[in-house]
């Protein structure tokens, strides 16, 4: 059975942007949750150890088990350091 992927837009910031080498990309994925998408990207890019990463979908913080839909905009948020 052929898997039908969804298209996800991803934006990278800070240490992730520098590691991946670009600020944005669009990926086609069979991941159904943000956790699955992160695992897929980790295999592709071998992210550095980052401590506790959070995730936002469509500019709102979401749970790692949040489902993904075609056209979602996802940002992985490494530990912040404002101020």
């Amino acid at each position: 059975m052929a898997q039908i992927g969804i298209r996800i837009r991803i934006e990278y910031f800070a240490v992730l942007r520098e590691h991946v080498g670009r600020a944005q990309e669009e990926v086609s994925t069979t991941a159904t949750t943000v956790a699955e998408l992160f695992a897929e990207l980790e295999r592709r890019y071998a992210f550095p150890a980052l401590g506790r990463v959070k995730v936002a979908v469509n500019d709102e913080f979401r749970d790692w088990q949040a489902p993904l839909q075609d056209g979602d905009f996802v940002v992985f948020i490494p530990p912040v350091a404002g101020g």
Partner: protein
Amino acid sequence: MSHFAFSRLPCTPEHYRALVSDPVAGGYASFEGWVRNHNDGRGVVRLEYEGYEALGVKEGERIVAEAFTRFPIAKAHCVHRLGVLAIGDLAVWVGVTAAHRDAAFAACRYIIDEVKTRVPIWKKEHYAAGDSGWINCEVRPADAPA
């Protein structure tokens, strides 16, 4: 009026102070984070702040709204710099006015504490030795940040 903003230009505290002035307010508490010339024992020559602005503004606004719920304050505002900053530059400004100083201090403290842990902003330090690192990602400060 918005209560949280990012700025790519240098911030003048007098400008922001005027935003929170209020004739019913007897107390004004403010906090400013400045770029230090050192961190964790290393000489720092400049900083870069990067922000996820769309979510950052939402989260910043939520934090200030929480402060209004928790403390009897008149006005409050927070602004955070983005971009390249030099030593001594203002990185973050928080100002709160209230009838009484208890509320002004408590709300000011609440806002800066929450902004530092919840708003998606990242800081890259450039060291006198020539290298650089993203704080809390590549560089783990031994002491709590200011």
